[in-house]
């Protein structure tokens, strides 16, 4: 099953390499990965789309948590959330095909961001299904190039990732104990 995992990390060099290395080294899939700074410039958010059976996803989350630079990991799958992707499509279209392209763009509420006598560059955001449908409709009309970014995602409502994380962890089958694996501030010293 596909999972969208949101990872809050220290905004430091090498973090992306640590995360992608974790996935490749342990043989986990990455369908897509996006990363950018958050409101707080010392942190970045990564949105990773991956797939695997439940135990694998559980390991992925635990292994991510093990990385020192990872502040918070939330599996958004199963949480009420919104997801968006963006795509740029270059279509070569002349004559009446231009009309057809414009109609489709209109229906999907896409945007023409570049026009030339030979064709268009179109921008569209939406969930994965919408984007797939859009690209498939345009294909017979002459799609030359597609640039698609990974998914970004966020829980619905006013809760931030942190509070969602708590409720998600409570639901996990290992019960309340796993709250211990969440990362908070503290000295972490071993007892004497």
């Amino acid at each position, binding site marked *: 099953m596909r999972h969208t995992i949101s990872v809050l*990390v*220290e905004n430091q060099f*090498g973090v992306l*390499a*640590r995360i992608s*290395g*974790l996935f490749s*080294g342990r043989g986990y899939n990455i369908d897509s990965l996006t990363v950018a700074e958050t409101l707080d410039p010392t942190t970045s958010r990564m949105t990773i789309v991956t797939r695997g059976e439940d*135990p694998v996803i*559980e*390991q992925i989350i*635990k*292994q991510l*948590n*093990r*990385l*020192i*630079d*990872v*502040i918070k990991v939330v599996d958004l799958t199963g949480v009420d959330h919104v997801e968006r992707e963006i795509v740029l499509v270059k279509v070569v279209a002349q004559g009446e095909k231009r009309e057809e392209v414009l109609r489709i763009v209109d229906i999907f509420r896409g945007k023409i961001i570049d026009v030339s006598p030979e064709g268009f560059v179109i921008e569209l955001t939406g969930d994965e299904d919408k984007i797939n449908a859009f690209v498939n409709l345009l294909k017979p009309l002459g799609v030359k190039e597609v640039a698609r970014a990974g998914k970004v995602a966020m829980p619905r409502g006013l809760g931030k990732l942190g509070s969602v994380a708590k409720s998600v962890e409570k639901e996990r089958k*290992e*019960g*309340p*104990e*796993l*709250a*211990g*694996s969440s*990362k*908070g*501030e*503290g*000295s*972490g*010293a*071993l*007892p004497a």
Partner: protein
Amino acid sequence: MAEMTGAQIFIETLRREGVDTIFGYPGGAVLYIYDELLNSDIRHILVRHEQGAVHMAEGYAKASGKVGVALVTSGPGATNTVTGIADAYMDSVPIVVFTGQVPLPLIGNDAFQEADIVGITRPCTKHNYLVKDINDLARIIRQAFFIAKTGRPGPVLVDIPKDITIQKTEYTYPEEVRLRSYNPTVEGHMGQIKRGLRAILQSRRPIFYVGGGTVYSSAEEEVRALAEKLKVPVALTLMGLGSFPAHHPQFLGMLGMHGTYTANTTMQNADLIFAIGSRFDDRVTGRLKDFAPHASFVHVDIDPSSIGKNVITDVPIVGDIRSVLRSLWRLVEEMPKSEVAAFHKQIQPWWDQIHTWNQQHPLKYEDSEEGIKAQYVVERIYDVADENLLVTTDVGQHQMWAAQYFRSKQKKSFITSGGLGTMGFGFPAAIGAKVARPDVPVFCISGDGSFLMNMQEIGTAVQYNVPVKVAILNNFYLGMVRQWQELFYQRRYSEVVMKAMPDFSKLAEAFGAKGFTIKKKKDVVPVLKEAMKIDGPVIMDFHVLREENVYPMIPAGASLSEIVVGPPEK
């Protein structure tokens, strides 16, 4: 406040961290640090190869429970540490490795002796750092030590560009270490602990499956106290050896591929496996899908990712072993005596069964009068040292014999390379262990192949007069490989003989150490006794019977129930 150079900050921060010994090897990128070392009272041990430095740091850490430290130069110095770092990562050994790096402006230019050691070691360190600003140096060093020794311990690497070691800044020692993204759970969740205890009390066929986490948590007493209170059988993993008394009536022996029949069979037939600081490694579980089919699992570990990785855990308890076991002990202590007695009674049939298994197939070998059996030497080492010793091993048959017959009363006394299985580990690790605990005899049980991999460290042992005793169980074979070729490749021996073996005793003498060659059984004990008396490194070359095999054995990929207890009847 006084300005200090990066090199001075380095030394001062190490000193405040309580570092008394560094294992290292100099070079261009660390010249300022080595220069500053002359002004400090930190002891530097000059090794003969950087891999040796890291294994020594590991041996030091494993024997003392403190963080081991290695210091090397950039490029080849750094890449030579990789095997040791990977070893420490697999076995969760707390070490910090400092590597020199080319000056910041040259990084990325393929400069002389540049290697991207942070990139190379990313997958085999708990964490690593490249210092890019002298003002971060002290904080990074503090964090490195903190990360190495807390939670599930592990190696941390700090890469320091040369220019940073000569720049100057005002030094403030960061008293507090704060990492918002790192806060290992120490105390187990009380609800889970109670559930865990309930699961044990409901079981009829329980076993304690105790691993290396117990040693790192210094929870030996806690394991014993709880096991004794509940009268539950205890089996140890290779890494857990030393955390439960070898002569204890509740001790079943070692688990795993070459573990005892009793330990493996008890595990396989248990209805409750209480895993303590162990990780269900494939060498222990055998074929996973047939592993302990009737068991439920309670698992205590400080690393959540170890739990539920290979088996579905019924009661996970994340926390420091010592703390969790103490809570469990208190809960049992508060129980009515009659309830505890009822539990003892409930598992009595299980004990009867276990005793039968043990009588059927005790751990044994057939001794020989013709030649020297490796197992015989191992047993005599434990005798001669009066079970008061630290043992390090290399990797191969000798390692398994050292483990099977292990008995030492010392804590943290079995030091071996379990996860990575690194030949060449044992001898430098012994030097590190002896430096950490000079008052306890340290034996390295090695093989002819393994010893050759880091024998250059004889020089180090001689220079610093580190009186480690090396017992090479010399079968003139890469014995473990030969055993597999004998059993699974129709005796087609491929590249398991080194036709140019050195005379190890002469080799020792060439370095200025004491060497012995032992070819007769009657000489084994006298030589061991003699070696104990010598105040300096001793290399003993025991010529053992060549084609002895390690039994019991669970063939790779087989289930624990397919254990082979001994050689086929002739």
